[in-house]
């Protein structure tokens, strides 16, 4: 995925789209006060400079799907694993909640279910049947909407072809009104996302940690923008 910081307007559409697509539970005011929101993607607002010349910077932050993912080796039960197509996935059934992975994720994008999530009737009717509803005591996080990838892959397999560029769009990418998010196959050098990753504006978040994220951020380029 590539994220163009010059385009993100912090409109939060991606945040809600992810809630809808991935059956993410809401936790309520008190839990948010404790820092227990479950946003798989969030827009971090930084202050580059402060009053009287404030400059804010928005950083959409979701799982970076690190190639060298620090969250994986620490999980004692292989709940945090790499899929063959390079996703970093969470096996909900396997997770028993040591939260070690979340400690070791430098981006702090792993979200923990501190309580049993609630979907009071008939709110449960809006759940996406493709996505597991997570229970208490387990970790969850952005999956790059793996269910959409799987659907597309099955379709492509049935038709005996490869998944095409643009055939899979995660919910957040799909809805982003400015198109700040771009999704595609990084291994395909012709894909848009692979070309964006080569952009001279591109950088990886916390690059020095060596996690090799799959997400390339494109620096804002305006007057004095980060």
């Amino acid at each position, binding site marked *: 995925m590539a994220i163009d910081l010059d385009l993100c307007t912090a409109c939060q559409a991606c945040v809600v789209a992810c809630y809808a697509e991935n059956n993410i539970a809401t936790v309520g005011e008190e*839990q948010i006060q*404790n*820092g*227990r*929101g479950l946003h798989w993607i969030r827009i*971090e*607002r*930084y202050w580059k400079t402060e009053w009287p010349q404030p400059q804010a910077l928005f*950083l959409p*932050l979701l799982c970076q799907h690190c190639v060298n993912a*620090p969250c994986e*080796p*620490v*999980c*004692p*039960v*292989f709940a945090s694993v790499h899929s063959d197509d390079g996703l970093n996935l969470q096996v909900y059934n*396997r*997770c*028993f*909640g*040591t*939260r*070690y992975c*979340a*400690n*070791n994720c*430098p*981006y*702090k994008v*792993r*979200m*923990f*279910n*501190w*309580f*049993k999530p609630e979907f009071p009737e008939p709110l449960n009717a809006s759940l996406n049947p493709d996505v597991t509803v997570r*229970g*208490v*005591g*387990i*970790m969850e996080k952005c999956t790059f909407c793996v269910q959409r990838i799987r659907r597309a892959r099955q379709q492509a397999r049935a038709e005996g072809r490869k998944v095409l560029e643009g055939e899979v769009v995660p919910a957040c990418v799909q809805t982003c009104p400015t198109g700040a998010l771009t999704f595609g196959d990084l291994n395909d050098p012709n894909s848009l996302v692979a070309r964006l990753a080569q952009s001279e504006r591109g950088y990886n978040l*916390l690059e020095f*940690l060596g*996690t090799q994220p799959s997400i390339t951020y494109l620096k804002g380029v305006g007057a004095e923008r980060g």
Partner: protein
Amino acid sequence: MARLPNWARLPRYSRGPTRGLGHDPVPEAERPLVRQGHGEEFGPGSVLEVQDAVADGRIEDVPPTEQELEEMDAALDGVVLRSMTRIGPGYLLLALVLGFGTLSLFGAWLYQIFQGIGVAGINRPVFWGFYITSFVFWIGVSHSGTLISAILRVLNVEWRRPLTRGAEAMTLFSLMVGALFPLIHLGRVWKFYFMIPYPNVRELWPNFHSALVWDLVAILTYMTSSALFLFMPMIPDMATARDRTTGIRRRVYGVLALGWRGSQQQWHRLHLAMKVYTIVIIPVAVSVHSIVSWDFAMTTNEGWHSTIFAPYFVIGAIYSGVAALITVLIFVRRGLGLQEYITKFHFDRLGLILLAVSVIWFYMFFAQVLTNWYGGNPVDRELEELHIFGAMAPLWWFMVAVNVFLPFFTLWFKRVRRSLPAMVVITVLINMGMWIERYLIVVGSNVRNHLPFDWGDYTPGIPEIIIAGATFAMFAFLYVALSKALPFVSLWEVKEGWRLDKWRTQGISEEETESVEEPQPAAPLPSTSEAGEAAT
């Protein structure tokens, strides 16, 4: 010339080889005249005076006679076994209170299981809090028991003899407490068996790359080996207990004595096994806390990701362990009436060890802070600022005060080391400081992570506070409960010590020549047939 009373022989073992008391006696004429007899001028508890008297040459250091030795044996057996069998109302009350405390731990835990782990105060980004702090703390405490005992055994420090049992028991109990925490802190504890490598149809194994699995292995290994380490030297004592008790106790001890008859061969094997085991268990102990430290050091978190962490944790563990040992021994000595055997001299020596360890610990602590401070890594720097000036400063400074300054400015003084109330206060404070140190490590690095947007804070939840507090009750409860089952002083080792001492100062008399190699305490000579039956 005064004779040294029997009960005062014990401290003699505590003298190091360099302190050859009596080697440089005051000329006979100048020695003060001291009346002979048991404890006539030196009542029980005045060990210090006796030692001083011996040192000053006011009294002579006379080894006990064979008969006296037997009397001493009998007295020791009596004291220890009496403390095992007598259950007074005070004891019951204490056990009840502590038992209730232990129950509250499980009550709070059940509440947490049914409500969800969210009742604890942990959050994002502080995913670990009181539980892991307690875990590290108790594993740390567990350290010195076995380690100290093993090191003292290896170095053949004579004064260890009355202490080893208590130290080893401490290891086991604090491990039992500490090992609960990896379970308590799980989000879904009912799935804990996922961690265990059991064969299953999906061929799923735990991830041996994960430091938590190392932890599991390390803790289980340590638990088993320190249980054995406790148990092995207890076998002869079990036989003693078997021979001195009746009824159900006798049967149980009989089983635990594993058919011990005190034969030459048995003694030989026990000594050999202990020699090997003592050496082997030292690296095990060191590795356990190294692995606990690697839970942290293997991550990307600033403040955890540090090469010094393993030795730092090990020395920290020894530090808090020695302190805990002193606290525990002071209470056990009092509770079980062992004043005659565990004396101020021991605390004096342990105090010196504590002082040495505290200095080493401070060195590592300082190195860690200094490199963080000068490292130029902004997050590290933030972390240190948080500790030193920020919200965590009160805790940090308290820790520095009690873990660095307090021992340094007190333990140099013999008077302090020999004052039990002072030692209780100091060691308890040190352990409070060590608990806080673990808290600062566990929570601090989560509070200050790489993304300032996600810097967090942490307030423990009520179940967390109850559970963390109740572990102390549980630890004490285990101690109190098992004090009625186990001899808290290693009888045969003490007795062995007396004899070794006698021979060392006196040479070996004719009739004892054959047992030089393998000194054999006189006391536990069982009536063989019965013992054999009970054991089988």
